């Protein structure tokens, strides 16, 4: 079970980064440093970086011994998640576009 408990050092590093990333994302939006698609990409990147910080420093992924079942289940979940989210957005966007009244196009 030791793989689930890190040292104080890893916890502090993880906490530090999670705070920095949260403030970075917050300031990007509130101070209006970026706009439009660039902002969306920046926010998604920060969230994914934050996810990795949480996974490594708090959930201690990557410290597992072979066979890495936790990692395998996680990756499969991520694949299904991607299909659900990206698929829904794709289909609903197209549906919106197709059903839009003609005078609202362009």
């Amino acid at each position, binding site marked *: 079970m030791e793989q689930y408990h890190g040292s104080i050092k890893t916890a502090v590093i993880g906490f530090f980064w999670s*705070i920095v990333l949260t403030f970075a*994302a917050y300031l990007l939006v509130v101070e209006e440093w970026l706009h439009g698609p660039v902002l969306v990409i920046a926010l998604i990147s920060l*969230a994914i970086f934050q996810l990795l910080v*949480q996974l490594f420093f708090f959930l201690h992924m990557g410290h597992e011994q072979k066979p890495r079942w936790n990692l395998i289940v996680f990756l499969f979940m991520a694949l299904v998640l991607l299909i659900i989210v990206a698929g*829904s957005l794709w289909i609903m966007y197209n549906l919106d576009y197709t059903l839009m009244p003609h005078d609202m196009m362009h």
Partner: protein
Amino acid sequence: MRHDPHAEADSLTIFGFWVYLMTDCLLFGSLFATYMVLHNSTHGGPTSKELFSMPFVLVETLALLTSSFTCGLATRAASLNQKKQLFFWFVATFLLGALFLGMELHEFHDFIKEGNSWERSAFLSAFFTLVGTHGLHISIGLLWMIVLLVPVMRHGVTPLSMRRLTCFGLFWHFLDIVWIFIFTIVYLMGVS
């Protein structure tokens, strides 16, 4: 291969809990997809930009991030059998979690008071479902903490309570991760 029956039962239990967390992730994923699809369907009601108060949400986020940190310190103290430290960090986790939940309920209360409940628009239905499901998980987590702490205070850290604390730690960090995405997708992207 080790043949310690205790260790084997522990790692199986924790793996089972991990699989549960992954399925919970899919639940949240579906709610996120629903929210993103319905985000602009405000039906004449308030948009996300008019509704959200960002400094408030930032404090909420910091409370939850800090509680995730103290929870990590609590399970670490438990693994070293430091009962006093475990108690201190665990209570800190509980209070921060309670602060987060209180702030979320306060936000919901304000929205509903202004006539912007889940009945107002598809956007608000999706918002209340997504954020409310997370809040429900947090409430269950708070109850779980109380249930966990009582036997630890009475008998100290036993292998059984250690296993339960480890599961709880995973649960709490997982809720933190879900909130990061709510913070980014619902709040930050909602007001930009």
